[in-house]
Every structure is written in C-alpha cells, then in structure tokens.
C-alpha cells in the first residue's frame, strides 16, 4: 500500500484509546511518516471523503451513531475497532442490563425523553469490522502491530489464549492464590497481564477467549470462596453482551 490515508473516529467512549495514540510520544512522528492522517477530530480541523483505514473508538449507542458508522464504512477500505467499547461494548454495555427507561430517568429525571439512546452495541453489530484492537484502554503495541500489518499487506497475529498464560510467563504469583478475585482464566490475553503485574486482578477488559469454559471458571471461583453471583456480576463489567456469560451450560472440566 502506498502512503495510506488514515482517519480516526470516536463514538460513545472515554476517548482514552485515541489518547493512548497521542501518548506514543516516541513513535508518533515516525508514524506520521508511514501514513497521512486525513481526519482526526480530536487533534485536527481537516476532513476527507475517502480513507484507506478508518480507526473506530467507542460503542454504538444513539441513532446518530448508527448513521455515522454506516457513512464511514461506505468510505473506507479497512475498518478497525479500537478498544473494549468498540470491540465488545465495553463498560457502556452494563446499562443494557437495566431497563432503558430507568437508566434515562436516573440521570436526566423528568427530561429523560430529550435525548434518544438505543441499547449499547459494538461496532461489529452494525458494519463489517476488518480488525480489532482489544483492551481498556487498547493496547498500543497491538495497535502498532495491526497498523504496520495493514500498511505492509500482511495478516496480523491476533491472540486467543487466556491471560493466565501471559501472567505465568511474567512469573507473577497467582492472583487467586493471593486470596483475590480474578478473571484471568477465561479472559483474552494480549495485555501482558498488566493488571496482575501491578497488584490488581484481571477484570477481563479484552473480553473472553473464544472457547471460554464459563461454568468451569465460575466453579473454580466458587472453590476459592467467591459466589456465582459475584462472578457473573464481574464478568458483566466488560462482557455484558457475551451470551455465554448468561447461558447456563454443562461444566466440562470442573
């Protein structure tokens, strides 16, 4: 690909993933040599009609979002979702678990019908997504890897193993053995187990591995003294839209 025309768009999100790019201080100027940034509302005035790669941050949560994402998809060759909100709905999707009317009323009171909103969905619920960069915030090494792969016309390598694998490679003490809750066994890696490595538990921000044994994971958490209810509630923080979280299936290995 010649110097590609690249654009960044933000939907319902905290814009932390876009900021994570501006935080690539050391690589930002060399990135600019690889690509022409033609649209990036958060940082520049220009707008363009056509893009080679459109990076999308955020969830789809209003009727306007739906119109914008359709319009962007029509004008771009590749579409890449950035971060948990765009890839799997992120923390935004937790509100789908409560009646929409009550959620609107909790924030706007009597003015609740002024601002239309629809159930939160990832970008892929509406348009074809070519590549996904997971994480909350998105992982910058993965962003650079996918970006370079597109420019070079290569297929990027995407991880689908559990966080436990990366956590063990870093020789961390097991979070569960420390007496803390953890979603590492069922959560998708690629983050280098950054939270367990900093004394926190895995919240599953990159979503679940594709063959996650949810029942086995819950049974294991129960053995460590955590309730089923707590396990599901914590799974819902980033995977509220994953059907497997709410399906009761036979436990295969526990």
């Amino acid at each position, binding site marked *: 690909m010649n110097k590609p025309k690249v654009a960044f768009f933000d939907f319902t999100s905290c814009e932390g993933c876009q900021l994570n790019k501006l935080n690539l201080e050391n690589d930002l100027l060399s990135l600019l040599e690889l690509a022409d940034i033609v649209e990036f509302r958060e940082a520049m005035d220009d707008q363009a009609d056509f893009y080679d790669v459109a990076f999308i941050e955020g969830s789809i949560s209003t009727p306007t979002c739906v119109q914008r994402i359709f319009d962007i998809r029509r004008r771009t060759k590749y579409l890449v979702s950035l971060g948990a909100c765009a890839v799997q709905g992120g923390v935004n999707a937790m509100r789908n678990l409560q009646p929409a009317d009550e959620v609107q009323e909790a924030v706007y009171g009597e003015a609740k019908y002024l601002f239309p909103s629809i159930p939160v969905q990832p970008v892929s619920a509406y348009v074809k997504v070519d590549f996904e960069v997971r994480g909350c915030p998105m992982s910058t090494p993965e962003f650079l890897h996918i970006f370079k792969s597109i420019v070079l016309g290569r297929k990027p390598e995407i991880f689908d193993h559990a966080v436990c694998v990366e956590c063990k490679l870093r020789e961390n003490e097991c979070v569960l053995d420390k007496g803390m809750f953890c979603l590492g066994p069922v959560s998708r890696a690629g983050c280098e187990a950054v939270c367990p490595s900093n*004394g926190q538990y895995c919240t599953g921000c990159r979503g679940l591995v594709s063959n996650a044994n949810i029942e086995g994971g819950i049974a294991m958490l129960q053995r460590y003294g955590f309730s089923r209810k707590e396990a599901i509630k914590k799974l819902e923080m980033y995977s509220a839209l994953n059907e497997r979280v709410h399906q009761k299936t036979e436990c295969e290995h526990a």
Partner: protein
Amino acid sequence: MHKNLDINVHHLTRVEGHGNIVVNMKNGKLEKAELDIVEAPRFFEAMLKGRNFKEVAIITSRICGICSLGHQITSLKATEAALGLEVSEQTKILRRILIDGATFQSNVLHALFLAAPDFLNVGSVFQVVSSHKDVVLAALRLKRLANDIGDVLSGRAIHPIRCVPGGFTMLPTEEQLRKIMDDLKGQGMQDLKFITGVLASLAGEIPQFERETEYISLKDANEYAFYDGDIFSSDTGARPVEDYLDVTNEFVVPHSTSKHARYNRSSYMVGALARFNNNHEQLHPVARDVMKELGLSAPCYNPYMNTVAQMVEVAHCIENSIMLIDQLLTDGIKQEKPADHPTRYGRGVGATEVPRGILFHEYTYNRQGNIESANCIIPTGQNLENIDDDMKKLVPEILSESKEAITHKLEMLVRAYDPCISCSVHMLDVSFIEE
C-alpha cells in the same frame, strides 16, 4: 457590521468529545449563542448501581481517558469518606504527585497540541511539526515525562491500575522515583523554559475579551489546591465539599446532553483560570516567573487566558512534584498495604481539582459495601453555562469582523475552556443560523 448572522459549526474540532456552536442573529438582535452538546450519554450513575466498593474506581476512571486519574482519585476519596477508610500520609503524597503529573500532561496536551495551532493559524499540530519541530519535540518530551509519573506510580497513565480504596496495590521503588525527579529537574525544567519563551512570542495572538464572572475552585490553606480543600467561590467564600449540591445546582437544557450548573450568578467558571484567580498567591517561584513572562496577572477576566493559566500550572506542578518526591525520598518509602476495611457504611463526597476544574463524586453504600446511589458532577458541565454567557457578550462586540473571523474567535473561546465533552456527558460542533 452584521445585522443577520448564522453560524453553525458542526462537530467542533480539537476538543475532547462532540459539540456544535450555534449563533443566530436576526435584525441586529442576538437570538441564540450557545454551545450544543451532542455527545452520546454514557449513564455511569446507572452502571455503578450495585457495584462493590473495590470495583467502583475501576469503572469511574472509564468516564474519561484524559482525566482517568482525576476521576479515579476523586472516586476513591468519595468511597473512603463513605466507608470511613483512613489513608496514610505516604498515600496522600503519592496521590498528589500523580495529580501533578496528570495535570501537567493534560495542560501540555491542550495548550500546545490543541490550542496552539490557533495562534499559528494552522488547523492541527501535525502542520506545526514541519515549521516548529523543536517545539513539538519539547512538548512531546514533557508529555512523556508526565506519563512516566503515571506509569511508575499507578502502573499505567491511562486508566491507572495501582490506586485502590485505602492506598496502593504496589509502590514505586526509590530508584524509580529518583529517576523521575532527576528528569523533571533536568530535561523537564529546560523544556518548560524553552516552550514558555516560544509561547511568550505568540501572546499577542490571544484575543482581548473580558467578562468578569464567578470563579469556583478548591482552596486549601497549605497549598495551591488540587488534592484537597474546601469549595471556594470568588463571590461568596468557602463551603465544605459535602455541600457541593448547593453550589452546582445542576439543570437540564434542551441543547445539551450534559447538564449545566449555576451558583451565585447566572453562571460560574471552573478550571485553570478559576484556580489561578482564587489561589495565585500559593504558586511556586518558577510558576510565578512563567506567569510574568506570559503576561498573566490576577485577577484575570479574559477566558482566552485559561490556556496561559494552564502553562503556569505546568510549571507549578513540575516544581511541586519535585518537592514531593524529594520529601518521599528523605522519609524513605514505607511498605504498606491498602487500609480497605470499612469502619462504617453511608454517604461520602470526594472533590479534587482535575485539569478542567473541580470534580465531585458522591456515593452511598449499603451494608454489603455495594453502591446504592452515585452522582458525578464534571467540570466541563459546570463551565457550559459560562461559555454560553461569554458567547452572548462576545458576539455583539466583534460584529464588525468577517463571519470567518467571528467563527474562529468562537471556536477559540470554546477551546480555551479545554472542554472535555466525553466527561461532561458522562459531548462539541459550532453552528451560526442565518436568514
């Protein structure tokens, strides 16, 4: 001189989030001058319901990527107040250093990457790269330095990991802290002085416009307030943070998914200029030098000078973090676990100064330590009514200028407030309506 004017800037650029500027003048009468906030609502208050106190700050940091540290610390303070958790002096110092870092990172990002292109008459910092590469590199180094503070003290500058109720999950090493302090003293101070010099040469580009308003910030007897203090109004004086609802008085307007606020007058201002006006006497010496070099003096009633006040705070925060790290190194880092056993369950309010102004979180917990109700009041929301009031005074004063010049000044005005629209909706565009 325009008799009819219709300006409609859809999705204003170089701000965080989505907003429109709408100005409508008919037969010499200003019918509308407002900032429409069109960002999609997030409904965080609803997401928090039923969540355990240990999860709350993880979720609230996701209100905003730029101010994630500020939201997290404010959230932790509210939780600690509600559950009766006492944090150590060391935790307070580490949190202060983190806030200094987050403030100067955000202020550098805004002043040099988002606002400065206006002074150079270009559309983005990317165009500045070719003409002023040395300035861009110095700004990037300062930003990196600020992010290093976040990475080392909290595990990650965006959506910090180590800050939890009662303290920290892990502590930095003295070696890491010493390196940050040396970098701040050396390269940091050098880059700051260089950038201040360049900005001083551009000071003539700042529009002359004044509107005296009510300035609200935290005020602390011991320091230029960021982490702690009482709510202070330039009109009415100090009140405890627990009274925040009597100060913010939020109300819904049809042109904004973010709620507006008012206290003693029709509107008030929060942020760097409000802090500067209320607390300038407590600035550190290097900050006072930057203040003089950039031509800022207190009280200042020109909202465009908010960007300059931000640079003064960059200097203050660098100095302050050097001082605090020095203190930690003198005392030695004590290995301590977070004090996270609740001594009571109830209501708690947390307030801190985040880059865009005073931020409030309030939670009520039940006996299981889960959230019963939550409320977050964001600085940008508090500034929105003040921005509308500024536009209503500014437009009639500049009517003899071209429509393009008027639009540009309105965009610059909104940008000067460094609005964080994602935050405020827990949303910006400019639109002029013409016959």
